[in-house]
């Protein structure tokens, strides 16, 4: 498999530091890049056929079927919101989506049970 077409970088050097380091593992497990929000790990993986998101809560994979997920890709002052499809385990997938260089990518998940919304922001370099 080709290496990641896009390198995703966290935003830490660009002003404000997002909530980056907290509870549980912070290492990517699927070759992507990671952002933490408190105890929740978001891993974004750019692949030839689309973009995957993996979610881990305090070292426990989050059941994707219990959540909805959305990517918001902002480039040049325009934003495209893309709903992701829940897959097996803790994976969400956006088929055919590409992440252009320079884009800001907001990840937002919503709990189907509680309605709680939270997420993280990635920068694409």
């Amino acid at each position: 498999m080709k290496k990641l077409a896009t390198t995703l970088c966290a935003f830490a050097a660009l002003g404000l530091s997002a909530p980056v380091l907290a509870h549980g593992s912070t290492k990517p497990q699927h070759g992507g890049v990671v952002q933490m929000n408190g105890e929740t790990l978001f891993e974004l993986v750019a692949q030839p056929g689309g973009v995957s998101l993996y979610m881990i809560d305090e070292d426990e994979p989050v059941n994707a079927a219990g959540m909805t997920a959305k990517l918001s890709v902002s480039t040049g002052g325009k934003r495209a919101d893309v709903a992701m499809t829940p897959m097996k385990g803790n994976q969400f997938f956006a088929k055919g989506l590409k992440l252009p260089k320079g884009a800001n990518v907001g990840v937002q998940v919503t709990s189907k049970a509680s309605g709680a919304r939270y997420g993280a922001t990635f920068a694409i370099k």
Partner: protein
Amino acid sequence: MNSRFRSPRISLPRAVALAGAMAVSLTAVTAEAHGIWFAQRAKQLALIYGVGADDLDMVKRLPMVEKIEAYDADYQPIKAAARVAGAIVVIDSDAQPTVVAAVMPYGIWSRAGTDEWERKTLQEMPNATASTRNTKYAVSIVGPLSKPLAPLPGQVVQIIPAGPIPTMLGAALKYVVLYNGKPVAGAKVINDMVNDPDARPEVTGADGTVTLPVRNQGLNVIRAEYIGPTDQPKLYSQVEHTATLAFTLAHAPE
């Protein structure tokens, strides 16, 4: 004392002295220390009303909130709304925001001498010695900024970081306080309205700036108070703006 307006910022002797002075004319006073700010609650973004450790009842005050706004990293608006979640108010946005903002008008309040503040206009309290219309503003930097924070619609008074936000506490950060989008002198700024609400305020100079050390390796809530002129002199003698800027610094790995 009215529970919705319980923190006059002036001491009793000062109030007595002011009352005497105001027998001739109404004097500008900063009367209300409470504000609104955003903070994380159970992973979600919540809107808080209070001061210091007083995290007060935002749910009952929610009808007073006039505006909830969210913006992405390019400051394009994201649809957002407040939602009651048990005892707190959380913000639901349609996408992951970089910045959120709120405006909460807090009514017209008047008092005579050292009496309690009452939700009355000057017309309703002709013997008032102080009368103010209050509005609370809140801006929170939720995600990393890719460009400097912009003046936001509806934020009549707004605190803007004049440079990159440091990653470690203790580092100096300059803030600009805007009034109607322009730097304003005379705004009173404190560095942490949650953990040090009674701090002696720094006052913005002619360029509208103050420089303060970032106080917390966690949530920082900066507060600015500015007394502006009345636009309804028959109803109140001043407009009191209380604005907050919230941001967080990441803590060390565990």
